């Protein structure tokens, strides 16, 4: 895979809702290089979130290959998937999903604790990560005392804290105002540029997607368009997928 962090071949996902079968992903192929910032767009029901869940190992492929850092997640049992989630994946959710009974620092520490990383220095490192996302002095604040933008920053710090191979971002600006939206997108771009973290982001927002290097358009469980823009250039080369 060389510099590939993700390689998906012929990924199909079939759900059963009652007696009805739903196929949100059909023979999907995708390669993502290390350090790439990719946006996935598409209408509702196009399979964006399902794809994100399969890449994040919180859902399993019905068939196909999902190589994450050279490990085929499609063939692993739940107990092994848990380790991939723990060691390779960082999540950032639309609704932030912070633990409401933990303060900002503890939320970031929890990520390191579950990953079993940085024993003995988690507190200090959590403060550093919070400083990285611009939340110095807010370490002791509970999520309820933070604005939505601040909560999303804590979520970003939490995802960064365990140093994952891929950060998966699901509609990060969906619950934010314009100012916060711009700041969060800028923060994600900074993280990608400065730390070389691979980010795959699902969004409906074209302005947000425009800030990424690569834009995938999904429809009916297939990639319709794969637009490579080069490193933060708006001139793009579009590849039509058939």
């Amino acid at each position, binding site marked *: 895979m060389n510099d590939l962090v993700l390689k998906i071949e012929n990924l199909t996902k079939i759900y059963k809702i009652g007696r009805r079968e739903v196929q949100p992903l059909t023979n999907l192929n995708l390669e993502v290089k290390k350090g790439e910032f990719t946006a996935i767009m598409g209408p509702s029901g196009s399979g964006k979130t399902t794809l994100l*869940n399969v890449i*994040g190992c*919180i*859902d399993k492929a019905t068939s196909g290959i999902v190589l994450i850092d050279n490990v085929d997640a499609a063939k692993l049992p*739940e*107990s092994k998937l*848990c*380790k991939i*989630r*723990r*060691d390779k*994946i960082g*999540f950032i*959710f639309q609704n932030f*999903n912070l*633990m*409401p*009974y*933990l303060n900002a620092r*503890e939320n970031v*520490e*929890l*990520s390191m*604790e*579950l*990953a079993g990383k940085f024993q003995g220095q*988690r507190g200090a490192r959590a403060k550093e990560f919070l400083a990285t996302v611009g939340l110095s002095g807010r370490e002791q604040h509970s999520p309820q005392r933070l604005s939505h933008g601040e909560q999303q920053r804590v979520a970003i710090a*939490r995802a960064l804290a*365990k140093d994952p191979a891929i950060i998966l971002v699901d509609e990060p600006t969906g619950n934010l105002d314009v100012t916060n939206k711009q700041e969060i997108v800028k923060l994600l771009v900074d993280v990608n540029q400065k730390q070389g973290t691979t980010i795959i982001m699902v969004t409906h927002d074209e302005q947000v997607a425009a800030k990424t290097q690569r834009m995938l358009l999904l429809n009916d469980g297939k990639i319709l368009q794969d637009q490579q823009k080069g490193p933060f250039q708006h001139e793009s080369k579009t590849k039509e997928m058939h």
Partner: protein
Amino acid sequence: MGILTRATKNLSRRKTRALIVIIALSLALTLLIILPPSINAREALTQQTFNDLIGADGALNATVTLSSTEIQCDYPPPYLSPTISISDVNLPQPLMNESLYNNITSIPDVTNVIPILYELPTANRSYTIYGIPLDTASLLKEPSLLPANITDGRNLRVGDSGVVVLDEETAKNFSVSVGGTVTISGLNFTVVGIEGSELPQGTHGATMSLSDAQAVTNATDEASSYNVFVDNIDNVNTVAARISSLDPNLQVTDGLSQLNTAEPLQNQMAELIQAAQNNLNQIQGTGIVEIGIAVIADAAIILFIMLFSVRERTKEIGTLKAMGASDSAILAQFILEGIVLSLIAAIVAIAIGVFAIPTLSSLLLPTPVQVGATPETLPNGTMILTRITSGPRPFLGNGSNIIAAPITPEIMLLGLGTAVLLGALGSLYPALKAARTRPAEAMRYE
């Protein structure tokens, strides 16, 4: 920050709900903490009642001293006479003389007449003198005349004279042991045996031959009572009537009437023992049912609150799983939350129990009854059970009806251990449910 910190912090998230749950749990745990010591205290009291009754039963059996063909005759003690004033209680026991002995011996169908002489303690002597005929015929007919519980030395034998068996108390007062000599009313006796004092019918003081007893009490040819043996059970009533006709002041008791008197009392005693047993069963039964209810209530409260919590926190569980939390980590966190909840409630329950155990145990458990009885013989020879008492018996506090036992550190540890166990058991199913939640479904849950 470890899993325990997270479990504890999560409880503070919904303070009012946690408080209500802790109050409910602590009430159930209070029962678990106070009931075992309270039941034990009641069992101890009931055991004491059993011991009292069994002692009384032994004393009752000891009152049946005559065989079915035996008649005892003596003069009633003077202090039992209605004409004797209180100042005359020290009057000596009236004795029967040799002519009366001869008259009784000559009654047809009488086979043996065994004279016994006893003199109760006097102002100058603290022990009873007990004289028995040490001849073969008398001892063969009634071996129970001899001291029954020789703890040192030997018993009296046929033909013994100038020897004595002392009970332990009397030997102690004389400061004498087996082989030593004691002087009684100016006569010297060699101590040949010591009689133990643990007898339901009491001990004899100084037991010696009849002739020796007559010598030390200046009662030559006299006796305190005669044990008369009849050849046939059918002749007992006739002989008893003949003896009574010799002297109307004589108190005549036969073995059959003694047995007939004792029997209903023995039945009554058996009923009292049964009542005490029923009472104990009732206490244990009630206690076990209440403990069962408390255990179920405690586990059920934890089960429902943790199930509710799992349902309410489905998305949170999904997030934890998405972050890489293993099934065992989720399981441990929810079980630990149940244990922490139960432990806090147990501490509250111990505090409640320490202060409220007397009142609560009285409300929750039946009160043990004290049943005691002492058999006594009336002057007319009738036996009755006296001092029958029943009712609550105080254990703590003076004169109150409060029965309880203190909550010891062992009980507290047991309570905390039970709380941990119930917390773990009650939260096991919800925790398993949480651990088995599929992350994708949990993330979709609204």
